[in-house]
């Protein structure tokens, strides 16, 4: 090969992150809508099952997590959809860095933009559903560790469906079964905290999911993108 230009991989990734954040800052409604959806779904439950604080407190961990899963499905498509339409995705594959690294950067940005707001309003959700105070911290921890899994697994689904017109419903069909373990352990951790038992076991497992999905997902995403851009 010819002598390469001097551009470090880190510089490229930094530019990618900067551009994505800048683009996101100019289309804020896209980011706000899933958050509002989450709030609405959570507040539908007291209306559906009755406002009794006992029952609410008991179903709160599950309700919050199921709602978080569903609302994350709404915002996932923006991971690659716009980039696919305007051709930036193709150019991302042509960057002088391994595609996995660029994909990791995209996942990171998506997490920052979608999960951090959720983490910020978590106390509000816990309050609405009357979750016992001693479980708030654990709920927050499960979301902190679990949302990267959503972004990483979501990236695989979006990579596979981005070239399809009717990708939205399909995306949920593909992803939700894969995310069931996350749901199980996250709610179990919170329920353990409610019951005053140590939630360390399920929390550790969620942490393991996070590590595994963040390391393996970029490879699957790369394969998916190569199918989708052609």
């Amino acid at each position, binding site marked *: 090969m010819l002598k390469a230009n001097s551009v470090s991989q880190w510089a490229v990734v930094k*530019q990618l992150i900067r551009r994505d954040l800048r683009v996101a800052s100019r289309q804020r409604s896209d980011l706000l809508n899933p958050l509002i959806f989450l709030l609405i779904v959570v507040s539908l439950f007291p209306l559906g099952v009755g406002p009794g604080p006992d029952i609410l407190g008991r179903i709160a961990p599950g309700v919050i997590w199921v709602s978080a899963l569903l609302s994350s499905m709404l915002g996932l498509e923006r991971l690659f959809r716009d980039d696919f339409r305007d*051709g930036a995705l193709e150019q991302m594959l042509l960057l*002088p860095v391994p595609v996995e690294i660029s994909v990791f950067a995209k996942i990171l940005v998506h997490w920052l933009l979608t999960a951090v707001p959720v983490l910020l309003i978590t106390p509000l959700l816990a309050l609405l559903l009357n979750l016992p105070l001693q479980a708030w911290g654990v709920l927050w921890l499960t979301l902190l560790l679990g949302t990267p899994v959503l972004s990483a697994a979501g990236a695989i689904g979006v990579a596979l469906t981005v070239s399809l017109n009717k990708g939205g419903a399909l995306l949920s069909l593909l992803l939700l079964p894969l995310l069931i373990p996350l749901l199980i352990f996250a709610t179990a951790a919170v329920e353990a905290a409610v019951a005053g038992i140590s939630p360390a076991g399920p929390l550790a497992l969620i942490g393991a999911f996070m590590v595994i999905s963040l390391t393996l997902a970029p490879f699957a995403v790369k394969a998916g993108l190569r199918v989708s851009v052609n």
Partner: protein
Amino acid sequence: MLLEAKQLTSVRGDRTLFSGLDLFVNSGELWQIEGPNGAGKSSLLRILAGLLPAQHGHVYFSGELIQNHLEQYYQHLLFIGHKAAVKPELTAIENLEFYAAVQGVELHEPPYEILAKVGLVGLEDIPAQRLSAGQQRRIALARLWLSNAKLWILDEPFTALDVDGIALLHSRFAEHLLAGGAIILTSHQELITPLYSVQALQLRYQH
């Protein structure tokens, strides 16, 4: 030899677009891929860029298989496809600054001069979504002035350009070729220019 493609075969669906295709591109050469719609021009460019796997055959860049050295290859490649890859939320300047940075070109000041060259004076700070398709295309083509890539692969670079734009592109091509670069492009129209000579590769529509 900058780029070699040996015995390429591409199949889309049930149809073989081309088979056993050889292409040798030297520094200083401009190759035009010709052929009717559906003959596989874009597929060929995408194979050469490593975006699309060929059913058979290999592509070598300065003697090495591109699949094995994609990141190094992309240090030397500028590919502009059908889609302009201009982010509509960003201004022309922001779009160009991004591409300059990832291509390892250092900008000491915002690339106003280049935008002026491609006829976007006064439109530098407007989000690209408010510009016309032709103007967005010009932003993408402005990357040609911000690149020190050896090899350019351009899919229909002349579409949506006016006479001035076309002339400008010709002169930039000539500069690049003179500096030892190479260009592979597709175009529906004949390239008539005294600035450089054109090698042609004819693809035929196969049933």
